[in-house]
């Protein structure tokens, strides 16, 4: 069962969410789509679309009035649920005190199917393991998600290979499909909280034709995505090819800048950073770290992964391979952010394909 709201209905939804949540959504800032505070539909990036290539992102005027006519920017759920720095504890005069998360409940509007898949993966890592990240847990438990089905795609999207999109399946409170003919949204309810917010809006039941039309838009998107990642026996394949010459070839281009891990919606590595003050107090922060930094693998006087090739290998074999054994799913959702936001355009799908091709060629000899 689905419902129909128009743009005023979406505006009403934002208004009613504002009473209970800090409402966050896609906005245009610094010439790209970011996630930031929004107050109404007027703040959404109406008419903008994004053009993505390896190492390139450009926001351009689209040829429609779509509010969600772009695909995705560098931000994901991680930006707000697992921010770059978080205070952990403070020490003063002989006693420690934990610093709880003080964020107000958040409602995030505009997340895509791949973003929801990424949140599910971060849940597995940060909530469902033996050590719960209390800051993440606090933000996550109060989160309201208005997700959006993708009716457009970027060249770096490969969610269809990772079975994470473009259609919303679960993990949202309300799921929207934007339909430009007679500009409206088909709304799917994903939770009781979602149902109760929808009930307060000016809405009606969707007809079967309206449902089919919305569904077709998502099908067209799914069929348009051409980038592929072959996941066949991928963990074993990577484990068998730890000495592939491809790692050195990638390292010639890799800047080890960490941009891929920052943009990745599932990368979760952090380091504790302790500071002391002149008054004898101390504090610990949880700060994003990356397997591309030397200090991250510093042990016993030296970094274990000193070469660029070993660092890229660590990232890719974990993301696509060992993650499965560790957490039960791939660490990759196929959003393509690591490709777009790599300053030199390294493409994880191309590298994977090249490595498979090299192995095939070797076997043929």
């Amino acid at each position, binding site marked *: 069962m689905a419902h129909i709201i128009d743009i005023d209905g979406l505006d009403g939804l934002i208004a009613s969410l504002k009473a209970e949540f800090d409402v966050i959504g896609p906005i245009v800032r610094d010439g790209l789509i970011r996630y930031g505070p929004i107050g109404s539909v007027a703040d959404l990036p109406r008419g903008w679309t994004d053009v993505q290539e390896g190492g390139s992102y450009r926001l351009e005027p689209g040829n429609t009035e779509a509010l969600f006519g772009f695909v995705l*920017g560098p931000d994901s759920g991680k930006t707000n649920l697992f921010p770059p720095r978080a205070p952990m504890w403070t020490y003063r005069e002989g006693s420690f005190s934990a610093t709880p998360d003080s964020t107000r409940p958040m409602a995030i509007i505009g997340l895509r199917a791949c973003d929801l898949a990424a949140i599910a993966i971060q849940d597995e890592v940060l909530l469902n393991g033996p050590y719960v990240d209390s800051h993440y847990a606090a933000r996550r438990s109060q989160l309201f998600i208005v997700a959006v089905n993708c009716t457009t795609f970027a060249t770096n999207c490969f969610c269809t290979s990772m079975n994470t999109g473009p259609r919303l399946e679960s993990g949202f409170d309300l799921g929207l499909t934007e339909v430009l003919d007679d500009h409206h949204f088909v709304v799917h309810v994903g939770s009781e909280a979602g149902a109760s917010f929808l009930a307060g809006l000016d809405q009606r039941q969707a007809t079967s034709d309206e449902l089919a039309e919305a569904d077709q838009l998502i099908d067209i998107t799914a069929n348009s995505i051409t980038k592929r990642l072959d996941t066949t026996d991928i963990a074993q394949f990577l484990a068998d090819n730890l000495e592939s010459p491809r790692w050195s070839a990638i390292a010639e281009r890799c800047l080890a800048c*960490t941009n891929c891990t920052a943009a990745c919606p599932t990368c979760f590595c952090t380091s504790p950073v302790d500071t*002391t003050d002149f008054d004898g107090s101390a504090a610990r922060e949880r700060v994003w770290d990356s397997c591309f930094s030397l200090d991250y693998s510093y042990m016993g006087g030296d970094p274990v992964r000193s070469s660029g090739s070993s660092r890229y290998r660590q990232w890719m074999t974990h993301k696509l391979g060992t993650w499965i054994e560790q957490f039960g799913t791939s660490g990759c959702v196929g959003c393509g952010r690591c490709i777009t936001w790599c300053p030199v355009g390294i493409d994880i799908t191309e590298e994977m394909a090249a490595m498979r091709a090299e192995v095939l060629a070797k076997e043929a000899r």
Partner: protein
Amino acid sequence: MKPRLAVLKFASCDGCQLSLLDAEDELLAIAGAVDIAYFPEASREYLDGPYDVTLIEGSVTTEHDRNRLRQIRQDTAMLVSIGACATAGGVQALKNFGNVDDFVSLVYATPDYISTLSTSTPISDHVRVDFELRGCPINKHQLVELIAALLVGRKPNIPTYSVCVECKARGNPCVMVAHGTPCLGPITQAGCGAICPAYNRGCYGCFGPSESPNTDSLESWWQSLGVGDDEWIRTLRTFNAGAPPFVEAGAKTEARR
């Protein structure tokens, strides 16, 4: 007894020492925690060594400097060089790429009065250095962090990774990816807080080479953004012209031309 601190300079602009005076919120706490024994920029009182910690700004450009530096090393337990001049020779290391006699004859009315080395070199080329703070100028928060760490004997949180890490943590978009702006951030050490990308400019490399700078890869990407060899070399040869990875990258491009 409080640790005794000395702050002094060689060939430099004084900007890095001023970062200490610029740390207004922490200055009283620092002054309470250490005995500022020698700091001509700030005080007329000059107390003799030995010192527990000496912060040195500036590069070595004269024979006189070189001898003075050896004496300072003997007078201090811990020597920290601060800023691009002290850690890489500074912008004045541009003279390393030319003939110093030519410069002297052009600039000075009486070149005979000038006694200078043919190079501008970092402090660590001449004496053992215990820690280096990068930057042109250094970042006052890093300086305060260093002093706070030294006082309790812990490792200072001074990362050697690239500016990109700070840039993303600050929430900046990548200016190369989003706008096609050439940026030295991926090969430059963090520490400034990614100021320039926050204002949609590329990084100028004030903090010198990062821990594992892939200059070749960045150079070829810059070429695809339309940056020519001259501009690439000029960009490498600014505040940290004398830093070995930047010297080698520039020489490689020059040899190819």
